């Protein structure tokens, strides 16, 4: 008798999310199986990787990851174009770091102008991120969401402290929204409930359970993501059926392994290769844990993860 592999099926399904407009719109998630278990059910869309750009020169980035963007990263518009036209980015994530009070403390209006300029320069979908300063983000992201009205962007990140204003702005301007909590599945569920109780549609949310880098708590993120997916699929929990975001770059490129030069850490291998691998391995782990959307920094790391997806998907 022929061998029939047992198929694991689930009552739940992850919401499908579409971002952007027209031909370049991107769709992700929508599966009713665990990551890459395409042989067990429906997994209609492959995971998507967004290239991160910033609204000020990335002076704090290590050399390895500044190098691919040298000459164009002083201006978010040329940076965005480069990602789209030269690197073949499918999505861009614009982080408005300059608005942080400890950086340049730029105003919401300035941020809105940057958003408009970048949107005018690209035709692929845009993710608009604040500086992760809960109070400032509330005003910056409201202005940014307005500037991008009807462009079907993702706005983020709404947290417990500021979700009301940011969710209202995302709703009023027809965007998707990232709901971020800090490595706590119960708080993640709670935040999703609170946001949807405001009238925000649950299929327009994206969960950011907070990322971390390989060697720096990755297993916590992995476990939270995995449990979110199991709650969505096995328990059919509609408050956990949103796609998951892995915001990789910002966590990976600040760790020692991605920065320490060869002369100071003998035996760790070539710095450039090490940094790129660190980002790729972290990203791959998040995909296997359940993330459907990644934000990454280094083009070569992105390529490595895309090839992995080619093989697994």
């Amino acid at each position, binding site marked *: 008798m022929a061998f029939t592999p047992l198929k694991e099926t689930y009552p739940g399904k992850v919401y499908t999310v579409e971002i952007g407009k027209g031909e370049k719109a991107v769709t992700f998630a929508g599966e009713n199986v665990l990551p890459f278990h395409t042989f067990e059910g429906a997994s209609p869309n492959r995971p998507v990787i967004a290239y991160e750009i910033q609204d000020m020169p990335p002076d704090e980035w290590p050399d390895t990851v500044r190098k691919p963007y040298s000459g164009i990263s002083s201006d978010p518009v040329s940076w965005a174009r480069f990602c789209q036209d030269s690197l073949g980015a499918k999505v861009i994530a614009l982080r408005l770091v300059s608005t942080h009070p400890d950086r340049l403390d730029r105003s919401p209006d300035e941020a809105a102008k940057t958003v408009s300029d970048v949107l005018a320069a690209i035709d692929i979908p845009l993710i608009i991120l604040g500086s992760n300063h809960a109070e400032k983000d509330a005003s910056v992201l409201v202005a940014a969401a307005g500037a991008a009205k009807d462009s079907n962007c993702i706005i983020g990140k709404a947290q417990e402290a500021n979700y009301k204003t940011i969710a209202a702005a995302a709703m009023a301007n027809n965007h998707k929204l990232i709901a971020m909590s800090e490595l706590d599945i119960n708080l993640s569920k*709670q935040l999703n409930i609170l946001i949807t109780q405001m009238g925000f549609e649950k299929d327009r949310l994206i969960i950011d359970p907070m990322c971390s880098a390989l060697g720096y708590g990755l297993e916590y993120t992995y476990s939270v993501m995995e449990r979110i997916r199991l709650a969505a699929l096995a*328990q059919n*929990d509609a*408050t956990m059926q949103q796609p998951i975001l892995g915001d990789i770059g910002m966590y990976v490129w600040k760790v020692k392994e991605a920065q320490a030069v060869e002369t100071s850490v003998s035996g760790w291998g070539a710095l450039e290769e090490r940094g790129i691998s660190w980002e790729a391995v972290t990203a791959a782990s998040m995909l296997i844990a359940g993330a459907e959307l990644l934000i990454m920094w280094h083009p070569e790391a992105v390529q490595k993860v895309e090839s992995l997806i080619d093989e697994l998907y």
Partner: protein
Amino acid sequence: MLIIGEKLSIIAKRVREAMMKRDKAPIQEIAVSQWKSGAGMIDANIGPAEDNGESLMEWMVKTIQEAVPLPVCLDTTNYRAIEAGLKIHNDEWGRPLINSTSNDPERFPMLELASKHSVQIIGLTVGKGGLPADAEERAGIAAEIMARAMEYGMPLEDLFLDPLVLQISTSQDHALKVIKAVKMFQELNDPPMKTVVGLSNVSNGCPKPLRPILNNYYLTLLMYDGLTAVIADPHDVAATVKTVDVILGRTLYAHSYLEM
């Protein structure tokens, strides 16, 4: 845990009058209120319905499903009324449930009907004679109903075994026997058999203030031993169901879990 809302019963005066007058508003209001309180299915109890049972059940199913996106539990001893209800039932939100068959030959046709229409059915573990004496007798009857279901070619997943909850005020010893039966039923098959109870019967005949207390504590014990579904007033039991589901790890905890 599935809550089957019991409030649309001909025993209630308001419901009976609405049924007789074919007045949709009260029926739909009660259906919506049960749905919002956490019911996953609505029981439509039209009684024996010897006259016009078919048109009444049709009207009930249509009226309920116009108002709530839920399947209906068709509750009557009138075989033809059940079939009429099945024919009109919208399966978009789940398959209907027949309430019920038993080991009484008069109720066998219900099982045949469930098999013919590929719907779910409650198997009440009583026979033609008196009430079952204990859990073992209930399990014996359950096995007979299961065997009959298999003869009719019905998947056992579509059968919900009901051990018959009795009044605690008159049959106190049966409270534990029913819990034991729920455990035994599950062992009759792999995957375990589904189980259901008509909960509020436990407190039937008790003073009104005691009834929700008895219902909810009893339900907690039944859920702990694996009960699949409960026919009850969702307003009465929703908090218990949600809380026990959280404690048993079936639902992920969040501060607002009671609001979901």
